[in-house]
């Protein structure tokens, strides 16, 4: 392989990884935008999505097989289920805490995250489950760069979900209400917007996007595990901050950028795979210190 081939292949790798990051980052950014909550449990909802998808698929596969049709059906079902779970969590754990000190709600979110991951740990005994599907390794070769059909479908699905979200937020009344609440909740209430209902809707969309990423990752990589949400949760948060937390296009951009940074990072001498995470977290810390609003975020006057 020539250097050019390597870089092109890394570009493809980065885009695929980045679209997972972007899907998860969207949920972070939406929830943060609307109630200023850093939802630590978001990565775990990604994991729950993968597990539910696995369950649904193992029930459905005798009927419709475990190829694309089966995966898509179980994806839709598990997105709805996890979205409802997200709303439930918001109602039980976050709603009563909205007026509490910031520290309390952060700890609550951490507790929810631990309950989800350790609950699955108790159920599965910490085992890795093999997520076996019918997806093959066939693909197209562009010069020396090889991309499987599965990868293309994954990136396509992610792009589709993200554009649907973008249209929803910018072209519908619900989307408008979401954006309005992010700016001033009390004014919205006075204007007759059902604030709680819109917040619930935001949670539903955000968590079901994470679930969609979870099940796609499960099917693509082939194994699921109770701890799989931790690393990606952290990376997706980094992506959301890079793009500017609270901004939906920012989360998409941030996700892709982080994916690319990580891919190319392994090619840089002295970083390699050993220092890759130090590199990503280092960027996060530097960004938070010097440009906490990210690339597309708005400057906030409020100090916390």
């Amino acid at each position, binding site marked *: 392989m020539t250097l050019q081939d*390597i870089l092109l292949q890394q570009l493809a790798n*980065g885009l695929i990884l980045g679209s997972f990051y972007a899907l998860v980052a969207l949920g972070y950014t939406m929830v943060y935008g609307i109630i200023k909550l850093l939802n630590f449990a978001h990565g775990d909802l990604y994991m729950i999505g993968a597990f539910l998808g696995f369950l649904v698929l193992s029930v459905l596969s005798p009927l419709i097989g475990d190829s694309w049709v089966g995966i898509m059906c179980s994806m839709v079902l598990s997105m709805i289920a996890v979205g409802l779970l997200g709303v439930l969590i918001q109602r039980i754990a976050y709603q009563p805490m909205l007026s509490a000190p910031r520290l309390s709600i952060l700890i609550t979110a951490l507790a929810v995250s631990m309950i989800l991951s350790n609950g699955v740990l108790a159920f599965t005994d910490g085992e890795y489950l093999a997520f076996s599907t019918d997806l093959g390794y066939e693909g197209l070769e562009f010069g020396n760069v090889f991309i499987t059909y599965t990868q293309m479908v994954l990136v396509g699905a992610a792009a589709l979900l993200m554009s649907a979200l973008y249209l929803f937020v910018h072209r519908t009344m619900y989307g408008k209400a979401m954006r309005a609440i992010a700016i001033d909740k009390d004014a919205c209430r006075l204007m007759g917007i059902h604030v709680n209902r819109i917040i619930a809707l935001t949670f539903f969309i955000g968590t079901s996007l994470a679930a969609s990423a979870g099940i796609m990752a499960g099917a693509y990589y082939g194994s699921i595990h109770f701890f799989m949400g931790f*690393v990606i949760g952290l990376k997706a948060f980094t992506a959301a901050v890079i793009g500017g937390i609270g901004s939906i296009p920012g989360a998409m951009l941030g996700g892709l950028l982080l994916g690319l940074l*990580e*891919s190319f990072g392994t090619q840089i001498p002295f970083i390699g*795979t050993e220092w890759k995470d130090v590199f990503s977290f280092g960027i996060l810390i530097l960004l938070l210190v010097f440009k906490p609003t990210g690339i597309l975020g708005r400057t906030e006057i409020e100090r916390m």
Partner: protein
Amino acid sequence: MRKTLMLSAVSGVITSLFLFGQVMAADLKIGIMVPTTGSEATSGKDMENAIKLAAMEINESGGVLGMKIDTMTGDDACDPQQGTAAATKLVSADVAAVVGGYCSGATLPTLKIYGDANVPFVIAAANSTKLIDANMGNAYQINSTGFDQTATAVALFEKQGAEKIAVIHQGDGYSEDLAKLTRDKWTEMGKEVVAYEVVNKGEQDHSALVTRIKSKAPDAVFWTAYYADGALLIKQLRQAGYRNLIAVGDGSNSPKLLEIAGKAAEGVYCFSNPTVDYLPAAKDFHANYKKTFDQEPDAYAALAYDGMKLMADAIERAGSTDQDAIIKALGETTSFTGIAGPVSFTDKNTLARSNFVTLIAKDGKWTLSE
């Protein structure tokens, strides 16, 4: 201040209950140190079962020096901190000897505790080479160490005509140790290690690493860590079109690897300790184990079983439960043959012969290669 007092009272009650909960027992007490909770609980419980089975068999045929064996389990949870607690628990309960040790990291700090108490210790599974330096003379390793595995691995790569290899570990003590040994040995032989990489635990996407490795065009890739991440790596290597040899270390010796990696795992080599499936002498053990515990024995059951039998044998030969005598008898072992093969020790208290076998994945199952 009032609250302080009430709280102290409450904590006092808890603590004293905890204190008085400790009871003593008699007979020939043998400690079992394995992880029965935590991430490695499955393997640990399996070893515990095998040791108990051996003790039961010994008791049925008259015990050791006329005494019945009474086992006591200390849970190290595969964690150094809990390992020290488990070891002190066993030592305080005045066990005559200890059998067990699965996670090298958790076993390492306990060597000092057993050493100070001069308790004979047969390490059944843990095999990091770091254990050799920390051994105070009372512990014996009946599993071959990383040195032997490296030798087996290097021999395979040579036989397959590899010149350039890539070594990948997972950033924990065990897999880094094996990776370093292999890298050093391979370069010593005048050959080239084109990539020496680490994968972060829990990460799913290794595509960047795979591209990097592929660009270096190695003749063999050696994964020294565990099955879960190994399966993902194998899958992604094959997916990216890497067609040369892939080998995995004994931590990856699990049917789960084949299940997760699916058809990508076909033809992958694995270096393994003797497990019951490949030991002709283990037939009875296998049947007994299944009958007693209603499950299949796991990778380290045979070694754990041998460990208990060896300890009983050494106590018989020592003729008493005197600790120095048992340790001496262990060191002089020459004629003991367990289901995993004959046991004798080097002057560093490690197994004198290599017990590694090479497996290959065929039709979704591990089978003996050659």
